[in-house]
């Protein structure tokens, strides 16, 4: 019994320490974004010698939205001799193919790739498209995104820096007025990009490539075998592959693009579970290489490890909650004595998602939507929601690891039939 209690107490202390580390990290990011020196992005550069780019747009049954993405891209001010657009028609059953062929007949630089095979999914589609792409830089958008006029230019500028392997822009939800969930997701996006990603860029840590509204060097991907189709979080995988090999990811806060966020809790649950599963499988694969690589600074390694463990945290926290209940009913919750109380109070002050509150508040103030700060307490719902769904994703990843089962790609359900009318 003594051994069991020791393990329970040990895990309890361990989880509190981990929570405090994450809380400190969030506080540092929020402080840096609000008061720290902001690192300059490359968008003050004006250059006539820009790299050639290939814009890849994975599509699956996108007849209702694809024209908005393509028309927006046609409005972009990037030199057309240096760009091509490759919509990847991935086994669509609607009129996506016909519509893309019609665009191709009007614009020679729109070159659709029609895939009709069993190996569907975003990573497989990107791999096929990269083989035919002519650009040095691959820029990826989702089919319902509407890039602003200068976005391609902003993203491509980063690659003038010979060390940049990938660049990530900022996504902003446009369907925020639908319901409570979309309002809360708007808060999360704001904190995640305006504060978290920008602070990581400022502090020269690891801004994360997000899989869309971003770009990467084609040669790096092809040399390293393209995207791994067995990984659901191909964006996280790319981020760590680049850092471990001595490349950097940069964040372009001013390269903004609208996106749609899930409008039902069921779809969000599925999305989060898939992200968690993918992210954790990347964590299992890259945590040791991240520690061992000589191409990363210690500060990057620490941030990288914490980033890799982000989707394992809710599971660890859920165990810690069960652990604390067990200790309580065993009458061993004697934490109100000595130095222990500091940990206890600290953990409760940063309980779960309270820590990112610093970042979300800073971001909302910077974005000029101060009233939304009042919604922060409602994120408590999200905390328990994520605790459950992210933990399930973590368990999925564990099973994947042990059983080596094959993962299946699922597209997130779209809610807006014609996104162009919404924005």
């Amino acid at each position, binding site marked *: 019994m003594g051994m069991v209690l020791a393990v329970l107490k040990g895990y309890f202390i361990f989880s509190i320490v981990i929570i405090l580390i994450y809380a400190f990290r969030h506080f540092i990011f929020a402080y840096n974004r609000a008061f720290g020196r902001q*690192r*300059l992005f*490359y*968008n*003050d*550069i*004006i*250059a*006539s*010698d820009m790299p050639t780019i290939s814009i890849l747009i994975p599509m699956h049954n996108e007849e209702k939205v694809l024209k908005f993405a393509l028309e*927006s891209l046609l*409005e972009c*001010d990037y030199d057309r001799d240096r760009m091509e657009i490759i919509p990847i028609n991935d086994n669509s059953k609607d009129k996506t193919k016909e519509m893309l062929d019609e665009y191709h007949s009007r614009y020679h630089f729109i070159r659709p790739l029609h895939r009709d095979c069993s190996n569907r999914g975003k990573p497989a589609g990107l791999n096929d498209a990269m083989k035919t792409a002519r650009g040095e830089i691959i820029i990826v958008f989702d089919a319902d995104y*509407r890039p*602003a*006029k*200068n976005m391609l*230019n902003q993203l491509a500028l980063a690659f*003038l*820096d*010979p*060390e940049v392997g990938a660049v990530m822009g900022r996504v*902003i*939800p*446009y369907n*925020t*007025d639908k319901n*409570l969930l*979309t*309002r809360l997701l*708007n808060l999360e996006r*704001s904190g995640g990009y305006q504060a978290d990603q920008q602070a990581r860029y400022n502090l*020269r840590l690891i801004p994360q490539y997000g899989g869309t509204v971003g770009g990467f060097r084609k*040669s790096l991907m092809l040399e390293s075998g393209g995207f791994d189709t067995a990984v659901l979080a191909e964006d996280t995988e790319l981020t760590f592959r680049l850092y471990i090999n*001595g490349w950097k990811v940069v964040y372009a806060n001013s390269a*903004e*693009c*609208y996106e749609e966020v899930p409008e039902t809790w069921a779809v969000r649950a599925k999305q989060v579970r898939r992200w968690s599963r993918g992210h954790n499988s990347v964590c299992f694969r890259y945590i040791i290489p991240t520690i061992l690589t000589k191409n990363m*600074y210690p500060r990057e390694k620490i941030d990288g490890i914490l980033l890799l463990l982000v989707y394992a945290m809710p599971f660890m926290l859920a165990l810690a909650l069960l652990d604390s209940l067990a200790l309580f009913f065993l009458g061993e919750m004697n934490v109100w004595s000595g130095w222990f109380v500091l940990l206890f109070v600290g953990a409760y002050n940063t309980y779960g998602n309270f820590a990112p509150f610093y970042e979300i508040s800073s971001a909302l103030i910077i*974005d000029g*939507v101060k*009233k*939304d700060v*009042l*919604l*922060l*307490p*409602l994120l*408590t719902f999200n905390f328990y929601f994520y605790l459950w769904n992210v933990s399930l994703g973590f368990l999925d990843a564990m099973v994947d690891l042990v059983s080596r089962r094959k993962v299946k790609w699922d597209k997130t359900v779209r809610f807006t039939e014609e996104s162009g009318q919404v*924005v």
Partner: protein
Amino acid sequence: MGMIVLIFAFTMLLFFPLLGGYVAYKKNNSQTLVIKQDRSKNPRYFADAFIKLFEEKWINYDGSGKLKFSHEESIIEADKTALYKSKCDSVVYAEKIDFNPEPTGIQFYKEIYVKKNAYLRGVIQLRAIACLSNVLIGENTEIIRWADAQNELIVLDNCDLGISTTSGNELIIGINCLFRRLYAPVIYIGQKPEQKWSAYNTIDKKILYLVPKTETKRNLKYIDKFLINESGIAEFSVVSKRNVTVVENIIVQGSIRSHKGIRICDGVIVCGNLFAEGNIVLGKNVCVLGSIFTQGDIIVESRVMIGQKNKIVSIVARGRIEFSENSVVYGNVSCEGGGKISKWLE
């Protein structure tokens, strides 16, 4: 009773924030952040936007001496004005004549719009000027906001150029001038209109056609004679955690990226771009054919060429940029910490 109060207080404290959040959710509508979809980078934006606005308003001008922009402004038509007050707080419009205000010592507190040439000798201060032809800004002039000329813009010594100074053709700036942003297809820095210098006339033109190499060497500290081929060319790019120094008279056929600073010694030619977290120092007679970007400061010694004819490059610093006289930039100069052009002292 005490316990009931305690439970009530606990419950209230627990749910009060949620209640507040719910009220805020019901009361306030969502605000989708606005992305300016048609935003495009235009280094001459100030002048272009002002000219567009002015022309729109001028169509309906009734001769009253007033014109309504965001608020009502008084207008002086330079074509009908011989002398100006020493403190002029009207928008000035010169349509058919060269603008050459007298007497000396005038301060223009509002924008000036000139369709012919503008000669601003003896003006102490002006807020902004947009000109469709050539502009000459005399010595010791302070520009508060911006200056733009469609053709040639000449700035004599000892001027403060405000936030932005741009030209559609050529910019010539004297010594002891302060600036924040400069843009023109060619900018002669620390020079005079009668004796313009550019290394473009003397450089071996073959170098201009060298394609920067993407093969990368990592963590070099020096690029020296041991790393070059028989033509004196280092055929690689460099990414380094250390300070990088390129020793004299070497050609680097690539870009350089340092996590610290970069020192380019005299006579070096860099075919690619320079990126650094620390300071970048360019020695005498250096040519950088690509862009330069740093989170620190940039110090440029004498007779330096950045960019090349008919191409636009940028020199951008998070900190300061200090030029010495007789340099040339093809494109864009921008610094957050302020820029200065000084006399070259050996």
